[in-house]
């Protein structure tokens, strides 16, 4: 018995057989922020065979309050999150193979990585990417552990292709105007509560205890002391374009996902969602004002200034980010404001 995993092997449903299975598995974690750092640390300590970490961002001071694995030095050096996480995790457990990818996760990058992946973990901060993960999970028949949170509120759901409803069944379409950690804040225990659920589900799946998987959708509010567990079977849709009989995996098509274009000579990036959205500009303005941002606008658009950059949002979800030519930075600012 390997002493370092002894307490996990003493847990009857895992045992030495389950531990051997965990040891052979490869988990892809998309997004190495609050959720991603927590789940990565759990999996590495648990002795998973391999993890792949993907994140396009670097560590900032404002991350340290809730993103484990990172230190002040990582923030000072603006170290890429995937690499900073990897460096720390290898000190925790050198037995685990860790691949760090610093870059934007689009359909083609992800499809090239999925060959031997056993589990997809949600560590992302936007629903564009979640719907992409959801389609990949369905197409390649890989379990996908959805999780998200803001403030003291969070949710988790285990998606098993062919068994449970998928994210598209649950939400029907890409939600816009979700609250984000940059607009309404977040406390770290909320993150832990989501990753406790994601983590337990991961251990069940990786150790071959698929029958123990949670069928219900969990939603909680730690500040208001609420916890609900909701059956989701009724929403499984046989006509679903992601998981139904004639699935087309819409988010894997080239034409979906955010359209990002640098507007030449204007120091501006334009972003637009594929499907037209109907933003409530009034609600957005109210939320941003309450978060302390400078907000202006008219009935057709709302403008907001964050970190010295001016952004203009239109009702159909299109946005102009002024003062930058950097596509990744623009995308990040877009997601930080409307999710």
């Amino acid at each position, binding site marked *: 018995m390997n002493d370092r995993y002894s307490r996990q092997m003493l847990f009857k449903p895992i045992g030495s057989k389950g531990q051997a299975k965990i040891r052979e598995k490869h988990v892809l974690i998309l997004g190495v922020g609050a959720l991603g750092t927590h789940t990565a640390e759990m999996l590495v300590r648990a002795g998973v065979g391999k993890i792949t970490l993907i994140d396009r961002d670097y560590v900032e001071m404002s991350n340290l309050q809730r993103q484990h694995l990172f230190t002040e030095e990582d923030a000072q050096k603006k170290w890429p999150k995937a690499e900073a996480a990897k460096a720390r995790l290898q000190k925790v457990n050198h037995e685990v193979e860790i691949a760090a990818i610093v870059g934007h996760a689009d359909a083609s990058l992800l499809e090239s990585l999925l060959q031997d992946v056993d589990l997809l973990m949600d*560590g992302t901060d936007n629903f564009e990417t979640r719907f992409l993960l959801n389609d990949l999970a369905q197409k390649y028949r890989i379990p996908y552990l959805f999780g998200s949170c803001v403030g003291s509120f969070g949710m988790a759901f285990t998606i098993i292709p062919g068994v449970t409803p998928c994210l598209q069944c649950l939400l029907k379409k890409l939600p816009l105007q979700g*609250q984000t950690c940059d607009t309404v804040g977040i406390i770290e225990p909320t993150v832990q509560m989501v990753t406790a659920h994601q983590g337990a589900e991961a251990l069940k799946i990786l150790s071959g205890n698929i029958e123990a998987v949670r069928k219900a959708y969990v939603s909680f509010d730690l500040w208001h002391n609420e916890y609900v567990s*909701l059956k989701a079977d*009724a929403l499984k849709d046989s006509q679903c374009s992601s998981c139904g009989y004639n699935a087309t995996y819409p988010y894997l098509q080239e034409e979906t996902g955010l359209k990002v274009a640098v507007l030449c000579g204007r120091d501006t990036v334009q972003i637009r969602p594929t499907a037209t959205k*109907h933003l409530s500009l009034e609600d957005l303005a109210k939320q941003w004002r309450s978060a302390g941002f400078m907000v202006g606008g008219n009935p057709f658009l709302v403008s907001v200034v964050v970190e010295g950059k001016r952004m203009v949002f239109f009702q159909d979800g299109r946005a102009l980010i002024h003062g930058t030519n950097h596509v990744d930075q623009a995308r990040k600012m877009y997601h930080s404001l409307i*999710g």
Partner: protein
Amino acid sequence: MNKVLLFAHLKEIAGKSSLEIDAAGQTVQSLRDKLVMSLGNLDGVMIAVNEEFATDETIIQAGDEIALIPPVSGG
């Protein structure tokens, strides 16, 4: 009567954690349409009836407990 549990920003909009309304006989869709007036945009908000997610056609009975779960994007 029906108790409607509110999550995330819906609590703030309503100024409380739950509403008491009479939705007996209505579909989930018509409840949604009615609540938009007080709660604002409910696009994408998932609705559960008695701890089970319900389709828009589900008919609400007296005493059913309803929960509104907005998807949030943080992570």
